[in-house]
């Protein structure tokens, strides 16, 4: 590209600054969108892949089949499995157990709950994390020795190295046990299901775990496989090991009531093949990731189509210059090459701008997807190569249409005033592309509206308790349960506290106890067991549908009978509405005074309450029964009145510290807890809204390009119409009508499909909004409005330009 070519291109770009800016903004925005999605997809793709030896390591998971219940897949296996198979299965070189263990960690006066990995020493041979100081393999073999990451070292000791021999105390089994740092390893450099902060030896002495029990799933088991290991044979041996183990434990004739079948999934493919096994909340559906990757392709395709269309419109305005070049001896190829080169340079500039835009938007995007993505992958050698390739490919593909146009152009005709001679078929392709863009926009707008409305609905839906003014102490009662009464008294005496409700469950707490109870007919029904304290119902303000709630003054209401009590006395319980229905009672009141059996003890229904939706509105509520039982109280809900949220949290924390000065506490407003419950949907919705916005922007640019091109091509026709009597308004109206046609076709085709898709998505939610069709209609109208807006500038210009001027120019 010569200096003259560059000058012409630059000055033409400045002359047509409106087109140039629109093209640049569109390209940059699309590139930024594609880069964000690319970073996200790359992050997901890199899941676990950075781990040393990842290609040889696999997770053993369990398929649990329990009678009368749906099968359940767990990332955990029995502690007993690993020792049984170690060195006994051909192809399995190493076996290691890992247990996530949170422990109150104490350093001087600082107390905080910290997550650790309790591992078999062989784990660090299997996955040898790079050491910063000390010998991790040696350290992990020692009792009460920590292998810490640099970030852990920095957090607890204020330095990323030089911390060997430093000590913290961990509360294990109710005792504060000193742990010494024996080695420091590098921080994780990629995403993983390992919550890697610090590790210590999975030592029997520090745990009350029954390491020989085949009945519970308590740890993750990893195997290192030899190349070409026979996986079916390995699985068969694993399953036989379980059968033998459970028989040994329960006796040959006993039926354990459940069966475990193992599976093995390579760590490399864990994220996408078994996302449900990720216990760290990274369970975003692979379909969502794939959907985003698809969205990236759609965005790039739309961008290319727009780029080509707008570049063609701009090239048409440079027809005379091109014709002059041709008469001056430029071969077709040279002219075409010039336009292609310009296009590549333009795409490169747009990528640079897109990169800057990405840097600006990345923090917000990170907040949206809940990750800490950075631009490092784009600055790496492969990233730069990819971006350069993207610029070249975009430039060549987007520039090929204008290049082809100028190559095909007849210079004699152009110089004789005949125009660039845009071909009808190319205009037709542009029309189809724009209609497709409108279709995609309509679908995305509809999806974004429905998704947003559903998330809003979920946040406000009837949950049968009142979250406003309530804070929650999670995982409240650990070893010092004996001080619970003191805590409750302190809380109730705290200014602003209206009520305190304590239960085994609370908002956002997913783990529940489930019991199989027997109806009068002998039929078994699974009900969640909710242990509560008497003030629970009034604190949550949950409606009582029939009967009464527990009265602490009535001994028969209390699940805990004093020693020597008559166990034949029935136990009073309260059902929730779904539980009552599951037990066969048509209405809440018909359940009153009815009985069912749990184990040996008869349960008498004294009341029915509304279903509390603590964890999800996606699934129907579970049947549950409430017991007045203080043995398993984990969630303390404190209702405040006339106090703001922040003060409520502070006062609750202070009350806790006055009773448990040595235990950390986590207090959260219930509103926030509920907000987090739908984080996945909300993130997906915001992502959908974000990328819908981008698609709409691209569609608008596409529409603008078509409008500009149409105005360029039809300028003469419009001028003639003006000369024969049409006024400016009718010319503008004609242009707008033509612009509306692809929008109407696109929206007409896409809206019904989008509505159908939205209704299918909504069907996943038990509690959902109605009226997807109305949102579809709004999306269709929005697309039509978009078409009018995109074409209005050209319409106004056509209406304003004197016809004589147009004809002279043409």
């Amino acid at each position, binding site marked *: 590209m010569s200096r003259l070519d560059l000058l012409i291109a630059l000055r033409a770009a400045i002359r047509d600054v409106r087109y140039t800016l629109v093209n640049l903004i569109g390209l940059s925005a699309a590139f930024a969108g594609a880069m964000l999605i690319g970073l996200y997809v790359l992050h997901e793709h890199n899941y676990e892949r950075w781990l040393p030896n990842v290609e040889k390591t696999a997770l053993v998971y369990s398929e649990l089949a329990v009678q009368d219940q749906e099968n359940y897949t767990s990332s955990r296996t029995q502690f007993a499995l690993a020792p049984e198979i170690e060195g006994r299965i051909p192809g399995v070189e190493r076996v290691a157990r890992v247990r996530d263990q949170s422990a109150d960690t104490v350093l001087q006066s600082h107390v905080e709950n910290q997550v650790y990995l309790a591992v078999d020493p062989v784990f660090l041979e299997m996955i040898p994390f790079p050491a910063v100081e000390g010998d991790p393999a040696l350290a992990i073999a020692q009792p009460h020795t920590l292998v810490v990451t640099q970030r852990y070292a920095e957090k607890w000791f204020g330095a990323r190295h030089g911390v060997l021999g430093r000590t913290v105390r961990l509360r294990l089994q109710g005792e504060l046990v000193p742990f010494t740092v024996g080695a420091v390893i590098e921080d994780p450099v990629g995403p993983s299901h390992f919550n890697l902060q610090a590790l210590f030896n999975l030592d029997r002495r520090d745990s009350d775990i029954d390491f020989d029990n085949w009945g519970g799933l308590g740890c993750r088991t990893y195997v290192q496989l030899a190349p070409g290991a026979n996986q079916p044979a390995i699985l068969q041996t694993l399953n036989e090991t379980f059968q033998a183990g459970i028989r040994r434990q329960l006796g040959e004739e006993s039926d354990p009531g459940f069966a475990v079948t193992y599976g093995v999934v390579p760590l490399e493919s864990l994220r996408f093949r078994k996302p449900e096994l990720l216990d760290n909340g990274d369970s975003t559906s692979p379909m969502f990731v794939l959907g985003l990757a698809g969205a990236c392709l759609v965005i790039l395709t739309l961008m290319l189509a727009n780029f080509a269309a707008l570049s063609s419109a701009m090239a048409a305005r440079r027809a005379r210059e091109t014709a*002059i070049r041709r008469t001056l001896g430029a*071969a*077709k190829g040279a002219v075409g090459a010039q336009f292609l080169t310009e296009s590549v340079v333009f795409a490169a500039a747009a990528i640079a701008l897109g990169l800057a835009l990405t840097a600006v938007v990345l923090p917000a995007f990170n907040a949206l997807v809940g990750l800490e993505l950075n631009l490092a992958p784009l600055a790496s050698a492969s990233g730069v190569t990819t971006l350069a390739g993207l610029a070249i490919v975009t430039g060549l593909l987007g520039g090929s249409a204008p290049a082809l146009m100028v190559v095909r152009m007849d210079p004699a005709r152009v110089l004789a005033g005949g125009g660039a001679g845009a071909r009808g078929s190319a205009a037709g392709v542009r029309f189809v592309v724009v209609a497709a863009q409108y279709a995609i926009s309509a679908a995305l707008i509809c999806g974004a509206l429905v998704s947003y409305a559903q998330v809003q609905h979920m946040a406000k839906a009837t949950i049968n308790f009142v979250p406003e003014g309530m804070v929650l102490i999670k995982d409240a009662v650990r070893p010092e349960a004996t001080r619970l009464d003191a805590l409750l008294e302190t809380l109730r005496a705290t200014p602003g506290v209206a009520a305190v409700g304590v239960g085994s469950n609370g908002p956002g707490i997913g783990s529940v106890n489930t019991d199989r109870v027997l109806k009068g007919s002998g039929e078994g029904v699974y009900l969640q067991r909710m242990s509560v304290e008497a003030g629970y119902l009034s604190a949550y303000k949950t409606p009582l549908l029939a009967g009464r709630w527990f009265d602490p003054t009535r001994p028969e209401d209390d699940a805990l009978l004093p020693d020597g009590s008559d166990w034949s006395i029935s136990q009073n319980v309260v059902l929730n509405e779904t539980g009552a229905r599951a037990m066969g009672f048509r209405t809440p009141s018909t359940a009153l005074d009815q009985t069912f059996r749990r184990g040996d003890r008869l349960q008498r229904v004294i009341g029915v309450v509304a279903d509390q939706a603590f964890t999800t509105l996606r699934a129907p509520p579970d049947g549950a029964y409430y017991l007045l039982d203080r043995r398993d109280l984990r969630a303390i809900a404190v209702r405040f009145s006339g106090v703001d949220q922040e003060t409520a949290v502070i006062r609750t924390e202070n009350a806790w510290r006055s009773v448990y000065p040595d235990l950390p506490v986590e207090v959260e407003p219930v509103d926030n807890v509920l907000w987090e419950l739908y984080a996945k949907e909300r993130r997906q919705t915001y992502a959908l809204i974000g990328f819908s916005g981008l698609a709409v922007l691209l569609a608008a640019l596409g529409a603008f390009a078509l409008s500009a091109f149409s105005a360029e091509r039809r300028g003469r026709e419009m001028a003639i119409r003006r000369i024969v009597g049409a006024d400016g308004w009718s010319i503008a109206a004609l242009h707008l009508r033509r612009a509306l046609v692809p929008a109407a076709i696109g929206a007409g085709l896409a809206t019904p499909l989008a509505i159908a898709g939205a209704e299918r998505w909504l069907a996943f939610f038990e509690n959902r909004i109605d009226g997807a069709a109305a949102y579809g209609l709004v999306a269709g109208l929005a697309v039509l409005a978009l078409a009018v807006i995109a074409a209005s500038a050209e319409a106004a210009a056509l209406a304003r330009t004197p016809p004589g001027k147009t004809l002279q120019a043409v």
Partner: protein
Amino acid sequence: MIEMTTIEKVFRTETVETKALAGVDLTIKQGEFVAIMGPSGCGKSTLLGILGLIDKATRGSYRFEGEEVATLPERLAARRRRERIGFVFQQFNLVDELTVAENVALALRYRSMSAGERKRRIEEALDRVAIGHRARHFPAQLSGGQQQRAAIARAVVGGPALLLADEPTGNLDSNNGREVMRLLSELNAQGSTLIMVTHAQFQADQAHRCIHMLDGRVIGDSTNQRPEAA
């Protein structure tokens, strides 16, 4: 220099076929100044386009400097244009985004030569048409006459053997028109073959020959008694 035999040019659309040139025979010698006249639509500009190798004849033979160019591939036709042919148009056809000097330089863009040689040629061409003082101006800052002089400078900077002018004074007032004609005549006198399409008889009278066209055919070819001065 130019030998055209039964040149035909047909424009086709899906339903209409228009014969713009219907068998033109034409011979032009090196150094001639030939005017082509005729009513609008008679095929003058089409003929000029074929002569300048920016258009191709549908049928017939066209020998340019002894070489058959009617079927010349585009790449070679482009080469002949940049090395042997210069164009002057009624609408000047300067690139609006380039200055006068840059417009002239554009004609050398596709030829390989040293920067110094390029600069020398550009300055010489601008001086020849007396527009050097406007070299850094953009076309929009020039009068019509100045624009046409710049266009002539661009046409001659490559030293063409053949100069084609399509109504070069059509957009100029009489004074500027006379000045442009003087320049073209000078260039012809310096050795360039000049073929000019014109509607004005007084301009055609300055040529050596005047060819009359009607309905795509040459209907008259007369030799002028060329006046001494325009």
